[in-house]
């Protein structure tokens, strides 16, 4: 059953594997955006997706919590599992899947509501808090985990959109954490942020590692090298190389990977 492709060869330990993808293809109409990709995401690691623009990183990431369902032209084949459960199965409840596999987007997108409401919304719709006090608790811990608590604890009723870009992005991370997900997908979470805010998010990812399986898309090679344990390099819809970050960056097996990492690509 477990049939690692060449790219996933280095992943040996299946014990802590959270999500698996096997022979996944994604089409937008006639466009073949993801070609036969197989990958494992471990629960205790940060996995980074890198690759040139338009190679399908976001597309693949969005398949992991079925956000692509909303794109009418998108079609997904192959197999994706969360804890061994097929997420494209008819039985799968998409709403619940997205609560278990949370997402942080490239552009911070807080709800135009108060900071408190931004965090409380998820737990409330999933019935995670039985009382107001419990909800307060969830909001506070989520903000603390996202490293935002000290900055906003005195103004929880201010609008979430009034925060700075970096704060907004951490608010979005706190919002994702609040529903207690198992996996957090981040699509270029730092691309709209300055270096200091980026450093904060990176610290945060480091802190969250181990508690959540994290998948991050990034264009920043140093960032991938700093925060991730596994790196996947995509090119034109193909998964070119996948392995431990240290190996990918110091000793890439493929010429294309090497070119891209050293900046010689395109």
């Amino acid at each position, binding site marked *: 059953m477990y049939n690692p492709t060449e790219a996933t060869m280095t992943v040996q330990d299946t014990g802590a594997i959270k999500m698996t993808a096997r022979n996944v293809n994604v089409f937008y109409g006639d466009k073949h955006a993801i070609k036969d990709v197989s990958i494992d995401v471990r629960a205790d690691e940060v996995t980074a997706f890198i690759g040139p623009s338009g190679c399908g990183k976001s597309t693949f990431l969005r398949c992991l919590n079925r*956000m692509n369902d909303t794109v*009418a032209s998108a079609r997904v084949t192959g197999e994706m599992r969360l804890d061994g459960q097929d997420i494209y199965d008819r039985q799968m409840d998409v709403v619940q899947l997205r609560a278990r596999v*949370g997402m942080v*987007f490239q552009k911070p997108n807080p709800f135009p509501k108060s900071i408190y409401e931004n965090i409380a*919304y*998820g737990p409330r*719709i999933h019935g995670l808090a039985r009382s107001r006090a419990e909800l307060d608790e969830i909001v506070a811990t989520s903000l603390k985990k996202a490293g935002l608590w000290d900055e906003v604890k005195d103004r929880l009723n201010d609008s979430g*959109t009034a925060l700075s870009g970096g704060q907004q992005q951490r608010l979005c991370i706190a919002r994702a954490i609040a529903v207690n997900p198992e996996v957090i997908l981040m699509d270029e979470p730092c691309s709209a942020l300055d270096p200091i805010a980026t450093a904060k998010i990176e610290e945060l990812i480091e802190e969250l590692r181990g508690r959540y399986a994290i998948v991050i898309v990034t264009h920043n090679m140093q960032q991938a090298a700093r925060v991730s344990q596994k790196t996947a390099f995509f090119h034109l819809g193909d998964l070119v190389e996948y392995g431990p970050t240290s190996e990918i960056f110091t000793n890439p097996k493929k010429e294309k990977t090497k070119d891209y990492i050293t900046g010689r690509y395109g």
Partner: protein
Amino acid sequence: MNKPALADGALTPTDWTSPAMVARIRQRYAREARFKAMGLVALVISALFLAFLLYSIAGNGLTGFQSTEIRLNVAFKPEALGITAADLAGPDAEDRLRQADYGLIGGDALIARFPEVTDPGDQMDLEELLSPGTAAYLRETLVDNPALLGKSITLWVPAATDVDMLNKGQIDADLPALERGISDRMLGYYRQLKADGDIRTSFNTRFFTAADSRDPELAAIWGATMGSLLTLFVTLLISFPVGVLAAVYLEEYAPKNRLTDFIEVNINNLAAVPSIIFGLLGLAVFLGTFGMQRSAPVVGGLTLALMTLPTIVIASRVAIKAVPPSIRDAARGIGASPLQVVFHHVVPLALPGIMTGTIIGMARALGETAPLLMIGMRAFVVDVPASLTDPATVLPVQVFLWSDSVERGFVEKTSAAIIVLMVFLLMMNALAIYLRQKFERRW
């Protein structure tokens, strides 16, 4: 001596001072100035039109809010009223007072006021100074205060429309009697009353409390206003939820295919259908098929709802479309169901736009006449409608009815009704603007 690189034309520096360039710049300025001037002229023309419209309506209509009254010393003589002391002792005293005949005492008071008029025929003419509403006014006075029975009291009673028109200067007293439509004798009585200070102009409260009448000095707007409110209530009740739900479905749920394209095109077409067609539809469906009552606000409201629906659907769809997709992604990304995404996020954010569209649609419905004529809301209604099935008319139809009337007294009433209608429209538009400002959000 050109360097080789610059020989290649594309790299020659632009000469911003060459005559051709200077001419082009001058031409650009001239065009700019011309365009600005044309815009200004257009603005002035439209402002002038608007000012003229407002001036003529206000000039004609403001006197419609005033009524002319005559001071009379009225004697509530039991024998003239046809009641006895015994009637008042009984348990149904108020009914007796109500049913009494008040037709004579007003005239009697005038005859007493002009003792020099002795000929019975002339005395009859005197009564024409008083409005036909005088009897009703005297009745209310006595019913409110039965102690007045058998006593005399000085009252201001409503004047007839001719006196009203004379007093407001809308009949030129210098014209020959035939042209002005009032006999010299009547003019004499009026002048005498006026000279004695027995004629006054007061605010026409009746205009805002009663319904239509055949007599211009008694005709009032409140009946039509209530008719409009009841009709719009039905319109809002139907078209808002249906319109918003249709828009939400089309935007958030419906698959994009031939069928929904077809529906979309047709909704846009419906918005352009002349309103009278909706009137015919209402006539055929609500009155014809369902046999509902003519002239009823509920039928008018349903008909106008048909007409308003496309406007609300289109405005709501635009508002929903304007909600950034990132908000939907955010909600979906933490596991909100499609219904929760729509009703917790999309609709609240689109609501200002939806409300603005709805209010504008309602304002259009308020000003709509043609479809209501088709379903019989042009009836002459003397009672203020109190329920959705009472016969009623609406403000614009009232304007139409009064403007169609031959009596001179209705001219100012028509303009007064237009003013009332415009005040309502202004209030609705102001509300729309206020809501838009208040709820405008940035993301």
